[in-house]
C-alpha cells in the first residue's frame, strides 16, 4: 500500500479478508474465532504459535463467559499487571504488552519538537546540544514550576563553594 496515495491501491490483501470473521459479520464458532489472526501475530513477533493458540482458546472461553463487556484498555491492563492473569495467560500477556507498546501516533514527539522552538530561540541559537536536551526534558517531563524547591536550590548552590557575596 502506497502511503502517499492509498486510494491508488486496488489490490485485495488476502490477509485482510479474513477479518470479516473477526468483525462478527460471518458466523464463526468460538473455537475458530481469531485463530488465523493469532497465528499471523505470533509469526510476526516471534512467539511460539502452538502454545499461544491453546492459551487463546482458554482466553476466549473465559472472556466470553465472564468478561464480555470489559473494554480493550482494561483487558490489556489486566493482562499486563495482574500476577494471576500473567501466570494463567503468559502469552496473551505478551500480546497485551506488545499492544501497549506499539506507537499509534507520533504526537508526543511532535509536541516535543514544537517545544524545541520555544527553548532554542533566535537569541539562544548557540545553545549546546546537551543543554538543549536537558531543558526540553525538564519542560516536557518535569514537575510543574510550582513544585520547584527554590529554597533548597539556593541552599545547594550556596554549599557548593565559598562565595563572596557583595552586599551593597
Amino acid at each position, binding site marked *: 500500500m502506497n502511503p502517499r496515495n492509498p486510494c491508488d491501491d486496488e489490490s485485495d490483501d488476502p490477509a485482510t479478508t479474513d477479518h470479516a470473521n473477526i*468483525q462478527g459479520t460471518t458466523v464463526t464458532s468460538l473455537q475458530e474465532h481469531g485463530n488465523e*489472526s493469532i497465528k499471523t501475530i505470533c509469526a510476526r513477533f516471534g512467539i*511460539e504459535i502452538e502454545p499461544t493458540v491453546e492459551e487463546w482458546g482458554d482466553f476466549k472461553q473465559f472472556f*466470553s463467559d465472564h468478561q464480555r*463487556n470489559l473494554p480493550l484498555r482494561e483487558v490489556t491492563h489486566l493482562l499486563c499487571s495482574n500476577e494471576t492473569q500473567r501466570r494463567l495467560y503468559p502469552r496473551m500477556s505478551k*500480546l497485551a504488552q506488545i499492544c501497549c507498546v*506499539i506507537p499509534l501516533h507520533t504526537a508526543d514527539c511532535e509536541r516535543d519538537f514544537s517545544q524545541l522552538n520555544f527553548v532554542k530561540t533566535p537569541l539562544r541559537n548557540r545553545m549546546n546540544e546537551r543543554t538543549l536536551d536537558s531543558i526540553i526534558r525538564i519542560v516536557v517531563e518535569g514537575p510543574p514550576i510550582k513544585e520547584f524547591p527554590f529554597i533548597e536550590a539556593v541552599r545547594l548552590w550556596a554549599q557548593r563553594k565559598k562565595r563572596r557575596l557583595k552586599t551593597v
Partner: protein
Amino acid sequence: MLDALKPAAEEDRTHNQIISLNATNIANQVKDFVLSKQLMFSKLVGIGTDGAPVMTGKHNGAVKQIIDFQKEAQTNSDPGRKCEAVGVHCAAHRLSLAASQAGDGVPYVKKFKDHLRKLYDFFDNSSVRTAGLRAVQELLDNPKLKLLQPSSTRWLSVGNAVKRLKEIFASVVVILEREAEERDDVIAAGLHHVTTEYKFVATMLLLCDVLPTVKRLSLLFQAQWIDFSSLSKYILDDMNTVDGAYLKTIGEYVHQLSQPGVEIRKVVKRGDTLDHHEVFKTSVQLPFLTQLITNINSRFKDDDVIFPLLSVLDPKNLPNAENLQDHL
C-alpha cells in the same frame, strides 16, 4: 536530540559530526542507541513515524533499514522466534493528510483555503485595517474578535479559522467593502468579491459542520490510548450526514447578513440549469464529503498486524453467545 549542523566539541566524541538527515543516518543513530543501551532487537515490536518518504520508503527508508538491523541481530535465533517490527504511520498525521488531501482534491475548497489565508493576511499586515474591523464590529454590535490564522502545520487551525470567520463574517465583509470604496484598495475589493459569493458562504458553513468532527478525531488519535474500532463507526456516520446543522440554516444565515447590508450574490454560469445551491452541492459539497470519507477509510483500513492485534484482545469481538449454542 540529533544536532546535524553543529560540529562535535572535542570532548564529545560519542556524538557524530556534521551529518545529513538521510534514512541511513537516521537508521544508524537508532541502531547505535539500541546497542549502546544494550536493548534487545528481538523486543523491537513497533516503529512509529510521521509517514515521510525518508522514513517509510520501501527500499531505502529508515524503517526498512532498522528492520534490516533487527533481522541481522537475530540471524542466530530459531526461525519461529524472530521478531519483526511493525512500521506505523502516525494516526494523527494520516487523518490530517486525509482531510487536507480531500480539500485539495476539490478545486473550490482549495481556493477557499487560499482565500481564508489571504483574508487573515489582509488584517494581520495592518493595524489600521484591524482597527477598522473593530470599529465596524462596534457599530454592528458584532463579537469583537479577530480572524484566526489557518496554517498547514497546525493541524486543527483551519477548522478554528473557519469557525471564527463564520462568527464575524458580517463585519469582515462590511469592512472589506469600505476599504475598497474609501481607500480604493484593490485587494479589499477582490476579497469582498469572493466572500460575497453564495459558494463561499456555503463552503464556509460546510466546513463548520465537518471540521469539528475531524478535530475530535484528531484529538482522540493523540490520546494516551486509542481504540480504533469503537470510534470509527459513529464518527464517520457524523460526517455522512449530507446537510450538517450549519449548512441546513444557510437560508437564514444569508438573510441575517442582509440586515447590515451584506448582499450575497447567487452566481450561476450562463446556460446552467441548476440553481446556485445545487451547483454548490454537486461541485463542492458532495465531492468533498465523499473524498474525505474515502480518504479516511482507505488510510485506516484494516491492516494485517495492528488491527488483528487490537481485535483479538477485545472481548466485544467474540462471537455471540447464541452462536456458541449452535455449535455445541
